[in-house]
């Protein structure tokens, strides 16, 4: 979700903020929240074209049928409207597309909007400037034609935005805030990309920072040079189209530029994209019965043209990959609130999995013994692994909380719960059924997942916990054997392992007072923990 804010005053010039319109905006997929002096709009990440106010207003007005589908005209490039792309950029940031927009009236509010737009488009479409970044420059300070080339960082010298003094590219990457934030994007590159004008002045070091002299847009700026640099040309073109059409909506006059790269092209290119759409598929997938005329009207409301089985998609739409994307547009245009929900007459047999049914049965048995079920996290704290002397721990990356390690047993969960409940009335007899994890290279994921059952009786002793085991196995018609065993944290000589058909599936016994002390517990504790998957498997045999 992209959250965009516009000034309330500006927004109201275009859209009347009635309850009806707010509802419509929500059904258009762009719910608006009214703040003090601003509006906050949630935009789905597949629609960056709705990030600029002009883009949203254009789309929403068309959606309401207020305005007809807009076509934009771009003026032909004038004499020096050229950008030469040097081969040297291939290794670092291979592509650029550019445009010129003239006759703009930019006030501070508009400039702020432009900066906001740039920021949002960088984080979304641009993947934090990695895939794509946009640069905006005052045309009148630049001498055309331009070159896009890559140079040794020590030979790139200019004063970056906000600085009076000239620095080389290495210094900019180290010292300028934008340099510090984005230098990783150019890491390890021998040559860095720059835009340079006909006078040899450097305009910018994309995707990092513009020059203070030739790259600073102010209220006096009327004419803009715009570039989009990055990798995938289609993405660059779309980003450029989104910005240029917004600037035209603001009253600007757009000119294209000749880009001299391997493919020599003229940008921006606002040719609509042709995608097949069939009325039959639309009606079938949506469960409605549209006539072709109705479908065309719905497509038009979403900004698309239609001709003989094909939709012609606006050049600023980034999200139409397939017919289904057009079908969604038709559904939105039709109105999600107009669809009548229906459950089809489709006979299928419902069934809970045997495994889960048995787990549920087993917990009912334990509830009959007056045990209380707990439900705890699958992750445990690192300090807890030390208390339990666990080995081969599996850790998650970059956890934002103390919970960092996949639990290997349910004992850890039980001890945490009991130590948090020392002030609650005893006896505390609890159980949990849950997954535990261990490393296992034979698994597809390298991790074995196993369902365990744990029972904890406090105060409790060997006899009592064994009674629970006896009851459980008897009710499940299983016979088991007990072997004396040692278990980390338990009292030796009071711990038995549970053997089911020759396989050790768990253990039970009294927890050692030293363990209890480590966990700050004050009551004797008896525990049973076993592998429930094995039990269920035996039952199902």
């Amino acid at each position, binding site marked *: 979700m992209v959250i965009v804010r516009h000034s309330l005053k500006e927004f109201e010039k275009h859209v009347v903020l009635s309850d009806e319109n707010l509802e419509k905006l929500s059904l258009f997929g762009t719910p608006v929240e009214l703040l003090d002096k601003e509006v906050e709009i949630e935009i789905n990440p597949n629609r960056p074209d709705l990030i600029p106010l002009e883009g949203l207003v254009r789309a929403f007005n068309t959606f309401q049928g207020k305005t007809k589908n807009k076509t934009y005209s771009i003026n032909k490039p004038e004499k020096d409207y050229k950008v030469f792309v040097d081969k040297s950029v291939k290794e670092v940031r291979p592509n650029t597309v550019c445009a010129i927009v003239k006759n703009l009236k930019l006030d501070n509010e508009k400039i702020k909007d432009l900066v906001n737009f740039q920021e949002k488009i960088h984080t979304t479409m641009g993947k934090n400037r990695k895939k794509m970044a946009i640069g905006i420059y005052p045309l009148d300070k630049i001498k055309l034609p331009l070159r896009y080339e890559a140079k040794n960082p020590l030979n790139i010298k200019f004063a970056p935005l906000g600085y009076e003094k000239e620095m080389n590219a290495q210094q900019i990457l180290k010292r300028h805030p934008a340099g510090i934030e984005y230098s990783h994007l150019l890491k390890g590159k021998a040559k860095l990309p720059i835009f340079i004008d006909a006078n040899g002045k450097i305009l910018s070091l994309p995707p990092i920072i513009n020059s203070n002299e030739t790259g600073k847009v102010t209220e006096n700026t009327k004419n803009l040079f715009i570039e989009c640099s990055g990798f995938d040309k289609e993405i660059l073109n779309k980003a450029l189209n989104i910005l240029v059409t917004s600037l035209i909506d603001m009253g600007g006059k757009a000119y294209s530029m000749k880009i001299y790269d391997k493919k020599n092209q003229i940008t921006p290119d606002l040719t609509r994209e042709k995608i097949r759409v069939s009325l039959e598929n639309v009606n079938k997938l949506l*469960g409605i019965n549209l006539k072709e005329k109705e479908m065309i009207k719905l497509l038009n409301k979403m900004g698309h043209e239609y001709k003989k089985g094909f939709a012609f998609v606006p050049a600023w739409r980034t999200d139409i990959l397939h017919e289904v994307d057009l079908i969604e547009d038709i559904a939105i245009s039709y109105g999600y609130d107009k669809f009548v929900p229906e459950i089809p007459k489709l006979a*299928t047999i419902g069934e809970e999995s045997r495994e889960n049914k048995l787990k549920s049965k087993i917990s009912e048995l334990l509830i009959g013994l007056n045990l209380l079920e707990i439900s705890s996290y699958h992750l445990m704290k690192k300090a807890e692994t030390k208390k339990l002397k666990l080995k081969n721990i599996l850790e998650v990356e970059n956890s*934002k909380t103390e919970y960092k390690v996949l639990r290997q047993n349910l004992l850890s969960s039980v001890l945490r719960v009991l130590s948090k409940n020392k002030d609650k009335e005893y006896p505390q007899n609890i159980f949990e059924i849950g997954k535990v994890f261990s490393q296992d290279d034979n698994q*597809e994921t390298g991790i074995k997942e196993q369902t365990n059952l744990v029972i904890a009786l406090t105060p409790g002793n060997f006899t009592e916990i064994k009674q629970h085991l006896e009851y459980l196995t008897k009710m499940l018609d299983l016979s088991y054997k007990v072997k004396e065993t040692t278990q980390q944290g338990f009292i030796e000589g009071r711990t038995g392992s549970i053997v089911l058909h020759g396989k050790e599936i768990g253990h039970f016994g009294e927890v050692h007072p030293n363990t209890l002390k480590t966990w700050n517990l004050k009551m004797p504790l008896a525990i049973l923990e076993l592998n429930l998957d094995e039990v269920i498997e035996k039952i199902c045999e």
Partner: protein
Amino acid sequence: MNKKIDSLSPIERKIIPFLNLEINEIVEKSELDRTTVLRALKFLEEKEILILETRRKEIIDLGTNGNYYKRNHLPERNLLSFLEKNNHIEIGEAKKQIKLSDNEFKAALGVLKRKSLIDLSNGKIKISINKEELTKKFPEEKFLENLPLEKSKLSGKEITVLKSLSNRKNIIEIIEERKTTFNLTEEGKQLAGKQITSNFIEKVTSEMIKTGTKGKKFRVYDMKSQVPQLFGGKKHFVNQSIEYAKKIWTDLGFKEMNGKLIETAFWNFDTLFTAQDHSAREMQDSFYIKKIKGKLPDKKLVEKIKLVHEKGVSGSKGWRYNWEEEEAKKIVMRTHGTTLSARTLANLKPEEIPAKYFAIGKVFRNETIDWSHGIEFYQTEGIVIDPDANFRHLLGYIKEFYKKMGFEKIRFRPSYFPYTEPSVEIDAFHPGKKIWLELGGAGIFRPEVVVPLLGKNIPVLAWGQGLDRIIMEFYKIQDLREMYSNDIKSLRNKKIWTK
């Protein structure tokens, strides 16, 4: 008064002769245990024979280290004695020779410096007082000797000492004591000390059934008297609601899917057409497992997924980037239940279509834990694989589920997920609060998801919504942390799921 005497239970009668004594003495004399005596006193309070009073008291006593230091002296005393024999010793050397842990040594050095008993210069320690003063007891030592003490009765000086000792590990321990006393009412004063006998029948015994109760009267019980609370065994409240939700799906003809909580990124993201640079895959949102890489399934499927991402399938343009196997081998705690749906589609045989599946299971997000965020929560997942399925059916299944969960009014809004198109967001109207609750998303799987997994393009309706939010609403829980905090008292007292 007489009626009151008649209604006295045996335990009450047993303690009445001792009511002029303190509670401890009553316990001793009546030969009842303390809990029973307290219960009897409570009953007598209800009968207005006495008034109970509970006072809290904080007692300061020695902690584990405190006990040890009492026997073996505080580290600062040990250090001082050591210095007496080794004046002008280098710090490092003192540390080596003295039998103190690193922390103890640091603390001792700090204390002595603060008390101006030593000087540190040129890395050497020098005692700065005379011999006489050396043997004088520290206030801390005196304090420890006098323990246990009641906190409210400490002098100002003692409080300062307490503060400094509390900062050190386990030297002192503060124990909260509750002291219960009682005062007799006028009636109580008349009764206290008397032996009260009665001919009433108390407990019904099996003997009585044989011999009969003719001519005898039953002692009257106080209907309003408090009884000790019972705690039954119970399913965790979240699991109760989940069982109910499962029943809804099975009633609607859905079969349960089971699967792993931990998955390869391949199944969690790539099969669901989520580009490898999509923000949902970032480490800050998902729990990746350190140092482990998974295995990819058979080559054919991997090739298909690669193709779908790079170039698209059945008329789609794809995401147009270089799809990397290594990225797909990362191991992640599943971020949504949709990974189960992807696996189910991959294993589905043509003759099993049409089919409907559901799952309810935990999913994981790398979040902070606060009142509205958690690291794990339950999601309900569903898919319908049906050549005739359409968007209205999708809305129909979802609407029915929430109706059965108690939400009559549902709203559908456009949304976006990389793996569905059309996509919807579902809100349910909370009739009490009069607000819309955001429940989660749904949609029809894109051909880019279905074709590689199923081999052909059939509409697959799919949804995955969080359940915790509506469980919280039912139990009137405000703080998400309460869902899995396992507070035993609150689990015991929580009402059962009654939908």
